[in-house]
Each structure stands twice: as C-alpha cells, then as structure tokens.
C-alpha cells in the first residue's frame, strides 16, 4: 500500500509472500514466492468459509516471479489473493512478470463479468507500471476467464500490448508455456466437477445461514400458537426442520447437481425437496397433524428449491436468459408454497 501522506515515494508494503526485489529501468519490482505457506493455506481456508472474503486482497501493480528478463512473459491477474496465490503457485520454476489489476478483491471471472477486470484497467495498469520500459516484447497473457471484460483488439489499440488468452485454470500454465502459448480445447473448457462443487458448499451454507436463522425464528414463533394458548414447545422442531432444509439446499443439491433430473435448478431443488419431505414425513418427523405435516412439507420444498435456484450464480454454466426464464415461473410458485405452508402450520396449531 502506497501511503498517500508520504512526501517522498514510499516503498510498497512488504508482504510475507514477497521474497526480494529485482532492479528494472523504472525502479525496483518486488519478487514473489511460488510456494504457498501455512499462512496462505489458512487464508484460503478462511475465504472458503466466507470469512473476510471481501477483504482478501493484495496491492495491484507489477511483481516479478523467478528471475525475469525483458523477454519474460507477462501474466495478468486479479487482486483477489486466492486468484493470485493460484497463479504464483502454478508458476513455480518459471521466470516472468505478474501484472495485478485492481479488481476490488474479486476473482478474475466474476470481476470480468462486471468489467472491473477489463480493457480499461489493463490499459491503465500497463501505463502505471511502465511495463513497456521493462519488457522488450508487447504481449500480455490474460486468463481466458478474464475475456468477458476484455476486448483484445481494444487493448492492443490502446496500450500497444497484444492479448494472448491463457488457459482457464492457472495450473495448466506450465503446459501452455511449453506448447508455445497454445492451449488445448480441454484447457479452454470450464467444468463444474464434484471437487469444484464441494469447494463451494461452505460458502453456500454460510451465505444462507442468516436467512435460514430468520426463517427458523419466524416459524418457531408462529408454530407456538395453539388453541390452548402459546407455547414454545415446538420451537426446537421448527429449527431442526428449517436447518435440515438449509443443509439440503446448500450441500445436497450442489453435491448431486448433475445427477438430479431436470435442467432448471429450481426443479432440481423441487425433486430434492420432495425427497426430503417423503423421508421426514415417513419417519413422522413433520408434526402431529396432517395439516402441520403438509405445511412443513411445503416449507421444505420451497426452501430447497429457492436455494437451488440461487445456486445458478455459483454454477459455471447458466445464462442470464435461462435464469430469468426459470425465475419467472419458479419464484411465484416458491412464494405461494412457502406462504401456504406457513398458514397451514398456523391452522394446524389452532385445531
């Protein structure tokens, strides 16, 4: 972080992952390590659980990796530390330059969708770092997932640097470099593997925790109404059911995603929610009266279906048109189901 109060130019803040400096015609550039330390791993674990995820940033600018020369390649990255760590880890044994854009701490793909990882910021960062005086070539290796925000022809026009789109995954960079900047179709393809889906489950659960808690409190309070007065005896039951639905929508749906029938996420959620209803209903866990049972069934299904619909944002393959189309149909139905469920639970308590 350059301190704006400094009268003389201040040195960039030293980070634990910096290993030294290299001299360039425009001054010192910090070198970065390519091995992740326990601290980096713990940092990654924290953001995987959505802790401090909005502030997991590094200073934008130019960094050196290995012992780069003016001929060494330039890799463009985002200033989300998880993205940056993937990159430097993949570049172990390579000599190069890393140009970190200011993406407000957001990963490459999401930032590209918003345009913060984009043409304007690349051009700006190229000028600010005076990289044209450091390297002799005029090429930038931009991650392929940055492409939604970048126009390669525009970057060339405005900065004089040509864009070479690298592979989707940083781990494929060594092979991409060895193949003289050629990516195989496999390297260009985004997938959504079981491993990818498991990695996003904690964040899903943490993101929805507050809403689930709110719903559980509301339903716990409402399920206390009965003909014989008010009692909170059913409150724990309400909590268990809402959080079971939360766990199903946030973990079971992502886990089983490709194997659940239907293409629409809300429908996938509907099937899983119905399964949950059947399982809990046949174990007599949904309440004493048929009305309460039906009410809880509708709540479970609407919660799981709604969470599944929202998983479109995490998934790697849904389009805006597709999501809008399914939302138009699914959200009204989910709302009606949730409201009828709540009404039935109240009526069930009163009878």
């Amino acid at each position, binding site marked *: 972080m350059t301190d704006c109060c400094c009268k003389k130019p201040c040195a960039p803040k030293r980070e634990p992952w910096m290993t030294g400096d290299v001299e360039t015609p425009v001054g010192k550039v910090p070198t970065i390590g390519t091995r992740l330390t326990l601290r980096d791993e713990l940092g990654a674990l924290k953001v995987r659980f959505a802790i401090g995820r909005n502030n997991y940033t590094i200073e934008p600018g130019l960094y050196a990796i290995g012992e780069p020369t003016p001929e060494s390649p330039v890799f463009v990255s985002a200033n989300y530390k998880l993205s940056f760590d993937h990159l430097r880890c993949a570049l172990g044994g390579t000599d190069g330059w890393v140009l970190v854009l200011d993406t407000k701490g957001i990963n490459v*793909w*999401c930032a*590209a*969708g918003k345009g913060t990882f984009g043409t304007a910021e690349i051009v700006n960062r190229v000028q600010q770092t005076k990289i044209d005086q450091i390297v002799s070539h005029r090429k930038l290796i931009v991650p392929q997932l940055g492409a939604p925000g970048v126009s390669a022809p525009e970057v060339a026009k405005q900065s004089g640097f040509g864009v070479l*789109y690298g592979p989707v995954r940083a781990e494929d960079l060594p092979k991409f470099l060895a193949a003289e900047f050629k990516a195989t179709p496999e390297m260009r393809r985004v997938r959504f593997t079981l491993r990818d889906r498991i990695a996003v489950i904690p964040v899903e659960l943490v993101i929805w925790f507050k809403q689930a808690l709110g719903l559980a409190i509301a339903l716990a309070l409402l399920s206390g109404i009965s003909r014989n007065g008010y009692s909170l005896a059913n409150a724990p039951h309400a909590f268990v059911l809402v959080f079971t639905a939360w766990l199903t929508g946030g973990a079971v749906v992502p886990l089983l995603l490709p194997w659940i029938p239907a293409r629409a996420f809300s429908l996938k959620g509907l099937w899983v929610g119905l399964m949950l209803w059947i399982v809990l209903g046949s174990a007599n866990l949904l309440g004493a009266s048929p009305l309460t049972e039906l009410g809880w069934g509708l709540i479970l299904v609407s919660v799981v279906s709604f969470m599944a619909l929202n998983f479109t944002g995490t998934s790697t393959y849904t*389009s805006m048109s597709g*999501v809008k189309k399914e939302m138009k149909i699914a959200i009204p139905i989910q709302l009606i189901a949730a409201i009828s469920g709540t009404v039935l639970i109240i009526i069930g308590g009163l009878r």
Partner: protein
Amino acid sequence: MKHLKNVVTLKLDEEKCIGCGLCSTVCPHEVFSIVDKKAYIIDLDACMECGACAGNCPIGALSVDSGVGCASGIINGLLNGSGECCCDKGGTCA
C-alpha cells in the same frame, strides 16, 4: 451439464465473420467451431451469455445479451438496481 434449452440470445453473422477464431478461443463452453476460416455455432444451448466472444470479435460479427446467470444478482438488480451477484461478494465461481 446444461441449463435450459432455446433461451440463449447469442447471434453470429456468418457473412461478416473473418475466421480469426478468437470467439472459439475465449468461449468456456465450446460453443463455436471454426471450419474453413468461418466460425459456426455448434452448441448454442451450452452458451452462458458471458459475452467474451462478442466483446473480443474484431469486426462485431457476434451479439449476445450478456449478463450474470445468477438468480440473486437478478433479484438484487430488481430490488435495488445494483445487480450484485453472490459472487461479487468475493467469488465462489472458481
């Protein structure tokens, strides 16, 4: 894995196309194929409307109504006009 059929807004003007292949390079879902210096859409339903192809096409032969395919983003957009997506808060998308 594929989402809904016949909803994607991607359009390619094959007449205009000069076959540079950049669309096929940036596409994360192998929507395009380049045959004899012309791009063709071979898997329209796989398109996620990220807009990478249209934004990189040097002659504007591609158009797509691009945006985040994310329910929370669309809901937030409707509620407060921000269009903030879940991943904007830090990035679960890879």
